[in-house]
């Protein structure tokens, strides 16, 4: 008997202790708290350890190709905006190969909840540095230490126009489930970067490392004064990384989601319309343009 309708018979093959378990638990929790049913949800992922998640959740899902889940998710949402569309991918997917889709999905304000399993490493390919790996880290593709500056994903999303930007941590499923719930409720693109310890390939950014640094903006002295609608205050928080790493909703404002402005959706979800709904008369009107 499954605990939630979202449970799957598939046994995850993540390493014991992997942060991805917590993220999956949080996501199911968020769906439950939003009273969603498996067929109302579509989880689109990329390729990576964490991107196997849709295989382990009983809901509609699609494990696409590396870096492209946001684009696939866009198509799903625009065909049927009544579906709840979640994109789940790794830091390699989202900030590496797929970075351009993030920017454009954000400025388009597609109503997609984007959950990034940010383990600061390419895990499935066994330990290369990722765009969020800290400078200096030695990995198999940076044996002399990373010389790039890491991406600051939240800052990037803000600059690209994202109207909801938040950070969670995999070992706080409850807090993260809350953030997921808010992100799903937010109409428009919502980036939720989730710090996810990878016990096999990231020996720097461990559970301990994260625990020592994270704080919730809502708990924080300074952050109490944090107005999540103030762009520059959010930008400061978004760029905070190192000794202190903020968790929570960093930025939120209201912006009309892309799909609601599309004339093509005025008649409802595309799959609900018959293929011939143009009708013979409509078709003849089209032909009149060529007379």
């Amino acid at each position: 008997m499954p605990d939630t309708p979202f449970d799957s018979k598939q046994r995850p093959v993540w390493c014991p202790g992997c942060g991805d378990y917590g993220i999956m638990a949080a996501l199911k929790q968020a769906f439950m708290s939003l009273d969603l049913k498996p067929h109302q949800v579509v989880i689109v992922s990329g390729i990576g350890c964490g991107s196997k998640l849709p295989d382990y959740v009983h809901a509609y899902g699609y494990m696409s190709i590396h870096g492209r889940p946001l684009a696939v998710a866009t198509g799903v949402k625009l065909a049927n905006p009544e579906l709840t569309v979640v994109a789940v991918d790794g830091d390699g997917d989202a900030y590496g190969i797929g970075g351009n889709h993030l920017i454009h999905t954000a400025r388009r304000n597609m109503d997609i909840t984007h959950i990034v399993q940010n383990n600061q490493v390419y895990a499935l390919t066994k330990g290369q540095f990722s765009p969020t790996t800290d400078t200096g880290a030695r990995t198999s593709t940076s044996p002399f230490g990373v010389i790039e500056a890491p991406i600051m994903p939240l800052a990037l999303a803000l600059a690209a126009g994202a109207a909801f930007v938040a950070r969670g941590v995999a070992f706080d499923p409850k807090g993260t489930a809350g953030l997921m719930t808010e992100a799903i409720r937010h109409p428009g693109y919502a980036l939720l970067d989730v710090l996810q310890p990878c016990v096999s390939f990231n020996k720097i950014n461990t559970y301990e490392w994260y625990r020592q640094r994270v704080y919730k903006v809502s708990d924080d002295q300074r952050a109490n004064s944090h107005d999540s609608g103030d762009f520059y205050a959010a930008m400061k928080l978004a760029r905070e990384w190192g000794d202190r790493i903020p968790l929570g909703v960093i930025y939120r404002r209201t912006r009309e989601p892309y799909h609601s402005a599309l004339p093509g959706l005025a008649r409802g979800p595309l799959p609900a319309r018959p293929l011939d709904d143009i009708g013979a008369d409509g078709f003849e009107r089209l032909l009149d343009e060529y007379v």
Partner: protein
Amino acid sequence: MHTPHTSQASHALPNSHTPASHVPEPDDSMSFECGACPPVRRFDVSMSIGGDAGQGVESAGSIACRALVRAGHFAFGMADYRSRIRGGTNFYQVRASDAPVLCHGDPVHVIATLTRDAALTQLGNLARGGALVCDESISPEDNLRPDIRVLTVPIIKIAENAGGKASMNMAALGAAMGLIGFSIDTLCSAIEQRFARKAESVVHSNVQAAREAHEYVSGRLAAGFPFRLGPVAPPSPSPPSSPSPGRILLSGNEAFCLGAAAGGCRFIAAYPMTPATTILEWMAAHAGDLGIVAVHAEDEIAAACMAVGASLTGARAMTSTSGGGLCLMTEVCGMAGMTEVPLVVVDVQRGGPSTGLPTRTEQSDLLLAFHPSHGDFPHIVIAPGTVQQCFEAGYRAFNLADQYQCPVIVLLDSHVGGSLVTLGRSCLNWNAVARDRGEYLGGHITEADADAETADGAYLRYAITESGISPRAGFGHPGGVHAPSTDEHEEDAHITEESGVRVEMMRKRMRKMETALANDLRGPTTYGDASANVTLLVWGSTLPAACEAAAILSADGIRAKVLHYTDLWPISDKGAPLTLRAMPKPQALMDDSTGPDGSGVLVAVEQNYSGQMSLIHRMVTGRAPDFAVLKYDGRQISPREIADGVREGLHRSRKEGVPDA
């Protein structure tokens, strides 16, 4: 491995090229456009308007076409422009006849030119006794061919009188149309319609320039000019309801869009790329009235992925691009093939490789489309040969995609995509549009019936079936919850690496192609006398020119037919005509070019360097062409060029013997 194609019909040669003096054979009648077309061609006049980019050469040409159609003619219009906004010489070629014309005329009978450069570039194409229409200020070459009639018309002065040099194009057009005997009033109303949204003064000066130049030429100057339009039956007015006997003028891209819209395509995501951009633009323009979601995506990868997402969710979805964009979509093609998602990709080909000749035409994306991703996966490639076939391809591509749950690549090209042809309105027949969703179970089911929800693994998205096709639930269907993966998967879509499942899944996916070959894909169509000894092996947009070439050759004593492929992959040699199934290679080419029934000379006619179709043809049948007529300078091959190439190839083969491969 492949099951038989559907059988092939032999069609009469359509639309043969007929010099004005030649009385056409009944055999020349159209057979692959609508039936209501006049069977005999009485006149056939071609003209070319040339000038610098930015001088409005294309608008002059398309106005001419529109006016001709209004007056009851069949018109064909083809642009020849450069990859830049201004600068360089552009041409627009117009062909007019009382019978259907589906390709450009060669030679042309009138050259109307706005610059000396344009004149010089085009003179070689002028028919004996043809005319050069140009401004007084343009001195033609000293050693001009004596047969050429030069009409100097004060084009610049007329334009300036009318309001400015911007109307030079209309003046040249007016003069040319006067020369071939076209009525000025119909021309003027076409000009007015074209500039309807512009300022009154713009309309006026354009109309006046055309009218004055027309008048200038019509009397004495035009007298005795041999290439004139003849009388046509007045076209019946086009009633707003279907099916109507009127005629329309449109391009292959437009026809494809009309077919797609009629077939139920409601989603396009694309990135602009010449010469495919007009497809996205068409869909965007009709987003409101037709209820289409048209997304100008951030790149081609995103565009194709969005189409996959929409398709997963039950919408008929497509993307459009040209070669460079198809490259970027290859990973997505493999994804759609692996996860069995219907995906229509339209590639309007242009001159390659790489950026190549971006505004020109070529048929050179076939070998990429033949296997557009890594690994083995099911997919279909089709290429319509005419504008009317583009309309059919518009809905057929979606039917095939839905039936076989795989990517369908439609290869158009700059030529068929952008050239204007005249069709009977009933050629685009709403009632003939097929809409077959195959084993689609539906998607959006509004009453969210929780009880209908299947347990994990209960719905088998990838059920192993004899046909290879599995019933497909759209995302949102309460009874079909599943999560496809681009990793190998079980029947219930869950990831697996189990050897046995893998093998069964590979076979199931690929079996769909055998089913498609057996049920829905078409073998090549033969146009002309099936017993003709010379077979022109063609695909896509060279069809009309090849048919005209076959008629020219046949009239010349070289009996030729056309074997045209619209369905390019998968193809099979089973059940195909003898020509396709290892057609015996002649030991030597007979002088009269005839041979035993079905054997004979196979000539590849393609717009690319390597004879891409003939490579695939040999891969499947073993039979290589005896020689090839290939063109790859970005200009569409003409009937005359094909006929000349065949004659030359036969001559060479007779001298050198049949080549070894």
